[in-house]
């Protein structure tokens, strides 16, 4: 079963030339895909379309084998995909780290204790156990990035969508993030400009340009 399957996607931002005109993309169980491409090629747009946060003007999106047509189709399935945004400040909106990490599990309908356990487990898995009571806006850039990863891992997702996860990280933090990814058994799609990084964490790298995905070996 495909986790994400997008076929014949057409999309344009208002008043601008089309980003995609007939794009196909899929993420299969067990697959780890890297996506490279110039600025403005539509890498983040691809993820936003897959999550149903943007609507294509033509084409179909399927998540977990189910056709997605409207918001009500996407809403229950979104938390099964862990989407890390490019800017951690967009993703960390709760007062404390623990509240932010528990936000997703609580939305999934877990009771408080279960949600807390799941959040603390996600923090512990990233060696962030001591961060639970920290205030989100006082974290450093690298800490914020790791906490955003914890917020999506706490959802216990079936796949990850990571948008430039290493941007702005120092080598040590990048190594730590890579270590976490290597230990995980999840499939993912990763956007990055760092070819060497993608080669290390992905089985397959695609180049996105002129609205098309082409394999890069």
């Amino acid at each position, binding site marked *: 079963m495909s986790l994400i399957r997008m076929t014949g996607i057409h999309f344009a931002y208002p008043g601008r030339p089309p980003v995609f005109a007939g794009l196909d993309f899929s993420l299969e169980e067990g697959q780890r895909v890297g996506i490279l491409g110039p600025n403005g090629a539509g890498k983040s747009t691809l993820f936003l379309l897959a999550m149903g946060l943007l609507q294509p003007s033509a084409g179909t999106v399927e998540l977990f084998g189910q056709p997605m047509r409207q918001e009500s189709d996407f*809403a229950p399935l979104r938390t099964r995909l862990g989407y890390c*945004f490019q800017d951690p400040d967009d993703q960390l*909106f*709760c*007062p404390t780290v623990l509240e932010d990490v528990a936000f997703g599990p609580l*939305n999934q309908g877990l009771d408080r204790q279960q949600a807390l356990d799941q959040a603390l487990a996600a923090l512990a898995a990233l060696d962030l156990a001591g961060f639970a009571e920290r205030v989100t806006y006082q974290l450093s850039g690298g800490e914020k990035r790791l906490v955003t990863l914890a917020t999506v891992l706490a959802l216990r997702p079936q796949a990850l969508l990571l948008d430039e996860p290493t941007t702005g990280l120092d080598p040590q933090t990048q190594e730590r993030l890579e270590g976490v990814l290597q230990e995980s058994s999840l499939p993912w799609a990763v956007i990055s400009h760092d070819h060497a990084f993608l080669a290390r964490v992905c089985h397959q790298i695609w180049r996105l340009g002129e609205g098309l995905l082409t394999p890069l070996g």
Partner: protein
Amino acid sequence: MHLETLAHGHSLFHHLDPRGKLAVALAYSLVVATGQSAWAAGAGLGLCLAGCLAARLPGREVVRRLAAVNAFTALLWLVLPWQLGLGQGWLGLGLSHHPAGLRLAGMITLKANAIVLGLMLLLATSSVNQVFHALAHWRVSPRLLQVFFFFYRYLHVLHREWHRMHLAARARGFRPRTNLHTYRTYAYLLGGLLVRSHDRAHRVYQAMLCRGFQGTYWLLDHFHWQRRDDWFLIWGGLLVALLLGLELAA
């Protein structure tokens, strides 16, 4: 930007439960604000001053905040104690001294300082998020609190963006002067900030949807009510009642 300088400390006031502090602060502010007697406000000011000393709040910061308040009350002193009358009064300028106005300006200054000092002692000794959190426990509208939380969370981000844009302008030789170029530059910066904030709000909402947001902004319990909070509530209540007694006796 750091707005919580008074929240770092280890006095009793810093460790008390914010819910209790909030209740006492509200009662105290109401009594002082609505009172007519200078005795009650004066006693309140004295009590809070003693409290601030006991809590070892940094004097410089307390004075800085009081100075900001008294910049406003100074305006009242410029206006309130005088009255205009034709062909009479001081230097024949038509201005004459007005005792009731003088008393009013004095009362407002006294009350404003008493309340601000009280809020510094009771609320600023907790972090802003703790105070909002305590409001949630007092059943303040969840929507209003969401606005507070978002406001405070993104105030820092916006401030940083503003700062960054301002630095970028200065790095290219921008010096604010009194001319059209300066006004236009500030308008661009402000406009840029507005557009960035709008985009940011949009992305934050998308990030919330990705984690299954359905309208509930969850807060977790962090507070632990202790025996000392009982005692604080009793003592705080008694002192506020004392102020009310002074007020009624006057």
